[in-house]
């Protein structure tokens, strides 16, 4: 390899350098700003994580898996995964190999940033070595990989159904510019390298192209315009990058270590929230995932559009989108980059200014305590009480409207001989989760404090919950040291395993619906399935577990009207009907009453079927 130009410089690198400097400084300033915007304790946490080798290792793994290989996408959709990883990883490899080449052949040029990018222009091949051919091959190979990805991208652009995506985002104008410039970079590179392949050398792709080109274009002067075009395409892409969805490429690099450091969304627009917005690649996976998309009118209210509107500071739309959401968390679960759509929306809601603020200071918790500190001693001789467990059962507001659940739960408690007390049989204070989802954190905290005082004063050692909405906030926000917080599915599963409840399997098919707050919200998937399997035959809906579809009754949505929820519920029901179950089983009072409204199949809570299945034994 020898250099052709002494200066190692040509004017066509100017556009590239402009783009490069622009995008790098933009990203650097952005990264600094985001880190500065983090609350002080979060910032400290972040820096500490960077020197923690375990986290750092995880960061590296995530960088590779998420940014380059798009493992999550692969898992979801092979074609889509290939398309993304081919471009990302291919490009990455071209850059890396380019640098290696520079390092190997012209180490004195390492400081010239553009050199590895336009390497083929500046050098001429002097000898054919195995090593050289290998690199030429690698370069051409990865270029081919990228080009194949781009072909797929073009196909996807024209026919997204081909990729199994029912709906995709509508690109904004900057996105389109970014897209077309990205598409043009690699064909232009191929063309440029093709023109110079006879001088600089090349492999199967560039060399063959060179031959083809030479067959009708004898003049090598054609090569300069193509290198110019290549550089300009790079410049356009890099300049438009911060304003297009391709910002997700640099943003995700920062998001990964921040997420691994355990930093949560605390402000709606600053710090990690801002980073999440920019990390959104606008892929539109959340559109198909969103339960609201069952109604076409709701498509524009999905997370990808929320991020776009936040970027545009369109406050009216931000409010609409964030208030409409059911907060089922499915978009978060499927997001390839880890944008937390539900948390982002709660954060947006918390920005809202209210003139009237409720306060619970006037509520005398002593009255409530006195109602729930007399534990019922069940004397069931069939079961031997292993430990002197005191369970306080908080049935919750929604269960008050589905008494079948609380009745079955208490019946099961009695059957297993547990000493229990119902915390809110004569009414009580809401768990605070609905208030929290409305973004009124302060009020929710006040309720949490009241309930904490009541539970602590009751003398219980276990807090049993029927409602996943309550369960989530009790798990996440309550500080109940020494008191175990259990959802009834966990609790009953444990009782069955301990042999305190013996279940008679019934010849029935049960389709289990994962409530959003219990499944995606708290990660409880297996215990309910164990119970259902004990009580009968478990069948799954088409989408289940992490992919389960919200029943549509969620309290998370503030603005979705009653009549507009019907279609969502019916969509969720169709998903469960797929295995033609005898009964739909869920573990949430709200899901139960929502489904019951429109279902032609009986809908029951897991406690109910368990209560039935344990009843037979006694006869």
């Amino acid at each position, binding site marked *: 390899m020898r250099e052709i130009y002494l200066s190692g410089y040509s004017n066509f690198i100017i556009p590239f350098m402009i783009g490069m400097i622009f995008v790098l400084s933009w990203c650097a300033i952005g990264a600094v700003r985001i880190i500065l915007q983090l609350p002080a304790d979060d910032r400290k946490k972040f820096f500490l994580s960077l020197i923690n080798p375990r986290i750092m290792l995880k960061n590296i793994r995530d960088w590779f898996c998420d940014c380059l290989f798009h493992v999550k996408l692969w898992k979801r959709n092979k074609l889509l995964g290939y398309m993304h990883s081919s471009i990302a990883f291919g490009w990455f490899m071209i850059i890396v190999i380019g640098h290696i080449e520079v390092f190997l052949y012209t180490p004195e040029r390492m400081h010239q940033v553009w050199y590895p990018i336009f390497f083929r222009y500046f050098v001429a091949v002097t000898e054919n070595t195995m090593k050289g051919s290998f690199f030429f091959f690698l370069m051409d190979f990865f270029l081919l990989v990228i080009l194949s990805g781009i072909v797929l991208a073009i196909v996807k652009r024209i026919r997204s159904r081909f990729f199994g995506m029912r709906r995709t985002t509508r690109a904004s104008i900057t996105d389109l510019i970014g897209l077309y410039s990205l598409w043009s970079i690699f064909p232009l590179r191929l063309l440029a390298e093709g023109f110079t392949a006879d001088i600089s050398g090349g492999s199967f792709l560039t060399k063959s192209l060179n031959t083809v080109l030479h067959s009708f274009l004898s003049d090598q002067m054609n090569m300069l315009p193509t290198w110019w075009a290549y550089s300009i395409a790079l410049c356009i892409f890099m300049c438009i990058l911060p304003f297009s969805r391709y910002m997700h490429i640099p943003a995700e690099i920062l998001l990964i270590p921040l997420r691994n450091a355990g930093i949560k969304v605390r402000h709606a627009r600053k710090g990690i929230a801002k980073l999440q917005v920019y990390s959104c690649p606008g892929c539109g996976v959340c559109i198909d995932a969103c339960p609201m998309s069952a109604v076409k009118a709701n498509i524009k209210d999905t997370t990808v559009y929320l991020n776009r509107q936040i970027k545009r500071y369109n406050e009216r739309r931000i409010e609409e989108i964030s*208030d409409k959401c059911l907060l089922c968390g499915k978009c978060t679960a499927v997001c390839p980059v880890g944008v937390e759509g539900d948390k982002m929306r709660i954060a947006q809601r918390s920005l*809202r*200014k*209210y*003139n*009237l*603020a*409720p*306060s*619970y200071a*006037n*509520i005398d918790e002593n009255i409530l305590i006195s109602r729930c500190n007399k534990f019922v001693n069940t004397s069931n001789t069939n079961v031997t009480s292993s430990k002197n467990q005191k369970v306080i059962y908080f049935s919750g*507001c*929604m269960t*008050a*409207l589905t008494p079948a659940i609380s009745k079955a739960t208490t019946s099961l408690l009695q059957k297993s001989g547990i000493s229990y007390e119902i915390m*809110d049989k004569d*009414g*009580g*204070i*809401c768990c*605070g989760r*609905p*208030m929290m989802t*409305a973004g*009124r954190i302060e*009020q929710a905290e006040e*309720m949490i404090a009241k309930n904490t005082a009541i539970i602590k004063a009751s003398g219980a050692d276990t807090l049993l919950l029927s409602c996943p909405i309550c369960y989530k906030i009790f798990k996440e926000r309550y500080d109940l040291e020494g008191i175990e917080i259990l959802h009834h599915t966990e609790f009953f599963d444990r009782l069955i395993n301990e042999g305190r409840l013996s279940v008679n399997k019934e010849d029935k098919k049960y389709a289990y619906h994962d409530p959003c707050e219990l499944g995606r919200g708290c990660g409880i998937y297996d215990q309910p399935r164990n119970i259902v399997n004990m009580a009968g035959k478990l069948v799954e809906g088409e989408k289940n577990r992490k992919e389960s579809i919200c029943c549509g009754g969620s*309290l998370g949505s*503030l*603005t*979705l*009207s*009653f*009549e507009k929820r019907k279609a969502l519920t019916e969509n969720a029901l169709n998903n469960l009907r797929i295995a033609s179950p005898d009964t739909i089983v869920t573990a949430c009072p709200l899901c139960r*009453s929502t489904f019951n409204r429109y279902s032609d199949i009986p809908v029951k809570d897991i406690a109910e079927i368990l209560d039935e299945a344990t009843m037979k034994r006694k006869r």
Partner: protein
Amino acid sequence: MSIFGFRISPSSAMNLDTIDRSRFEELCRIEPDAARCMSCGACSATCPASEFSGMSVRKVLLCLQRGKEEEAFRMMNNCMLCGKCTMVCPRGINTRHLILSICRIYDKEDKR
């Protein structure tokens, strides 16, 4: 002025001629369903806050329409936004958002 030991007591009647309903109308623009309440009282019966502050969405709506705003605010003070009222409303009124909207539109201090 002489002191008699008694005074002219203000009228307890709600005078619709003098009540300013502009904020209620604003509320109805945001929440058209606010006008659809048929005062069945299901919300009041199920409300966990009614025990503490006498909360009742029905009464709140009525008070706002009849210029008894203070009374409405007093009732709303213990609302926990739990959504039971939304669940039981036969007219399908989105009471939770309604309450949030009231909290935004109305102001204790601002006496229009």
